């Protein structure tokens, strides 16, 4: 039951409103793409789902985000548990300057898995899941910085998968990658959607059209339109959406 219900979400930075009254229900499994011109609040939105905005002192969040019927912003909630169940992959690959193995094993370890054999299993399973195992299985102890950009990004995906999240958030995961690496990540996303609820922010409309089941269009901090991808791209209901996807605006 890992649908995400967003209710009356408002976010401010330094008193400036970045998101305004967002209401939407992201269904379980499948891929949901968030599109919109830069500065429209799409990154802010995805970062409120795993409460990464909490790190920024000047940020204020109001509203509710319900997962499993529980409000992520409720008073009893442990942020680290939220982030454990909701993984995140960032714009630029950001592996730790450690070995490939240590990058994957880090999260299971801090969440209590100390057994070496079990860790080995997790590392292999996660790397396989991220379609990286065959490329790195002989050099797990090498620095993650020796990998190419695309490989680093898949390593970051494997790292997020290692603690068995139910939801995985992707914040423009391909913006720093070349077309071939991008294609690999997209294939991977499609593979993951049977098992995880995937939310991806992208500035690339083709990418959204290629991989997403549902697409949401944000503009100036507001959710303008949310629906089935094919429908949103072919028969947008809102004029703003149409202007954006036909390229008449930024």
């Amino acid at each position, binding site marked *: 039951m890992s649908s995400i219900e967003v209710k009356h979400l408002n976010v401010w930075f330094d008193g400036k409103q970045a998101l305004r009254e967002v209401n939407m229900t992201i269904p379980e499994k499948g891929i949901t793409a968030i599109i919109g011109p830069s500065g429209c609040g799409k990154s802010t939105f995805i970062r409120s789902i*795993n409460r*990464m905005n909490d*790190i920024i*002192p000047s940020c204020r969040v109001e509203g509710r985000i319900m997962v499993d019927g529980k409000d992520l912003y409720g008073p009893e909630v442990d942020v*680290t*548990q*939220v*982030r*454990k169940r909701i*993984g*995140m992959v*960032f714009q*630029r690959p*950001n*592996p*730790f*300057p450690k070995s490939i193995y240590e990058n994957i094993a*880090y*999260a299971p370890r*801090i*969440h209590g898995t100390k057994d070496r054999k079990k860790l080995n299993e997790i590392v292999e399973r996660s790397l396989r899941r991220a379609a990286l195992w065959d490329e790195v299985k002989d050099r797990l102890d090498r620095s993650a*910085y020796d990998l190419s950009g695309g490989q680093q990004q898949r390593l*970051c995906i494997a*790292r*997020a998968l290692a*603690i068995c999240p139910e939801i995985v958030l992707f914040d423009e995961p391909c913006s720093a990658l070349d077309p071939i690496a991008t294609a690999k990540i997209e294939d991977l996303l499609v593979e993951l959607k049977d098992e995880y609820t995937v939310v991806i922010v992208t500035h690339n409309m083709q990418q959204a059209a290629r991989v997403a089941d549902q697409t949401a269009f944000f503009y100036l901090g507001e959710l303008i339109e949310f629906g089935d991808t094919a429908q949103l791209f072919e028969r947008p209901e809102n004029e703003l959406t149409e202007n954006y996807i036909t390229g008449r605006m930024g």
Partner: protein
Amino acid sequence: MNAISRNAKEKLYFNIFRACGALVVLTLVVIMAYMLMGSLPVLSLDFLTEPPRGANTLGGIVTPLVGTICLMGIVFAFAIPIGVLSAVYLSEYQGKGWGARFWHIVVSNLAGVPSIVYGLLGLALFVTFAGLGRSLIASGLTLAILSLPIVISAAREAIQAIPSSLREASMALGATKWQTIWHHVLPYALPGILTGIILALSRAAGETAPILLTGAAFYMSSMPDSIFSQFMALPYHIYAVATQTMAGMNGSPVVYGAAIALLMLVIGMNLVAIIVRKRFREKYRW
């Protein structure tokens, strides 16, 4: 025509600047050369292992050398943990508002206070007020306070150089702030912190004025037997022999030898710091 004179002018100026650069290197070479030449007659391992004799005009420097090492030990034990942890707090917990600016001003002002003023503080606070007397611990604590701003600003710089994307990566995996600091921030900043520590220790090893007020002795027949006893220290030894013995005033090899020993200690530490920084800058390339 005009261009030629412009180029000639440029050449002239550049040669002046080049001469300035050469002059600076020359002073380093001259100072080192005179110290080395003066110390040649005593330059041997015995000099390092023998205590001073004949009212400090003969023998070696083992007593002051050990005293200096003890001082560095006290500085290490007090200034390093407090300094590094303060730096962690200032860069990871303290935001970027007026508070951060306030701390920056405090640290930079502390770094600018003359060492003799720290000596006065040590005299009033540790020797007199705390009742530690003129002792190793009073001098060591004074030097620790003097080193604090150096450690803090070096550690802070190293911590702030770590890209925030790595902190985010760790937090997004469900790590707590402290886990992120412990597993990522501190290890990645370690080389920079280490460099700062080495430089702070080498500065503490070479300071004379603060220990002159807080416990260094002209002569001790034995090593300090507790942290509450007086002590000999290398920099003070150099000053004392040079200014209070006839042999020293006339440039006895003993005083040059002590200077060379101190130089080797300090320069050696500086070189290690430079190497550490270079080595690790290549390891973490972000």
